[in-house]
């Protein structure tokens, strides 16, 4: 079996990286709560989603080690997200124009 004779082992991620990320996540959480207090109207949902995506990419790339994985993993994730976007987007061609 070819690909993994020489299985590449991940370097352990230093603890402080994780802790820094964690601090960032907490900060962003407070940020969302804060923003939710001031009035932005419709923008509001988008702001929340924006921050949420930043948080999730932090989790995915650092906590979940995606940064260290091969390209295959990243492409896979991208494909999934694209399909997801399509599902949502095309559904709205109905909802918004009914």
């Amino acid at each position: 079996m070819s690909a993994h004779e020489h299985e590449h082992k991940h370097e352990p991620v230093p603890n402080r990286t994780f802790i820094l990320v964690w601090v960032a996540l907490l900060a962003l959480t407070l940020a969302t709560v804060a923003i939710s207090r001031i009035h932005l109207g419709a923008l509001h949902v988008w702001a929340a989603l924006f921050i949420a995506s930043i948080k999730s990419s932090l989790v995915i790339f650092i906590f979940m080690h995606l940064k260290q994985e091969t390209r295959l993993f990243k492409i896979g994730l991208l494909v999934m997200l694209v399909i997801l976007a399509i599902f949502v987007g095309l559904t709205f061609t109905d909802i918004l124009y009914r």
Partner: protein
Amino acid sequence: MSIEHRDDTGARFGMWLFLYTEVILFSGLFILYAVSLAKFPVQFAEASHKLNIYFGTVNTLVLLTSSLTIALAITAIQRNQIKRTLLLSAITIALAIVFLINKYFEWSAEIGHGIYPGSEHLAEMGPGVTTFFNLYYFTAGLHGLHVLIGGTLIGVVSVLVAKGKVTAERYTLLENSALYWHLVDLVWIFLFPLYYLIL
């Protein structure tokens, strides 16, 4: 004598594929959420006021922290610090339990107010609000179920760690259950602002 040969990368990739399916699973509910929000912006705002933001925030912090601990656990086992691994996994599980207890109190409070799927009180509050709470209960419920599964998974694996079945050489099991746990966290990262913070 079917040949099981070792392929850690493959195993992790398989886990990632499984996580994709989980994301799509939840996305079904989030699509419904988006559609209903487009339909009832006002009622959604009003309804989300009824949710206790403090429970929400606390649970967010709990989950983020648990994500950190399990991530640290991976580093620990990679460095072959078994005790530390066990400790960190234990903390993670503890946090999972805290999350669930929190949820229990939150829900029992709301149900106490007569707010639960199919209740008359909800029906009186009108379509938009009903939809909001139905979705809230189903999404949060499904998420809670995942917290339960994730916690159990980590528990089982830590036993294996203690038994020395999962080691610095061969820790894919722990890593995969960690991945699963992070997914639980990810879902909450979106669930929290969408349900608790829409104003």
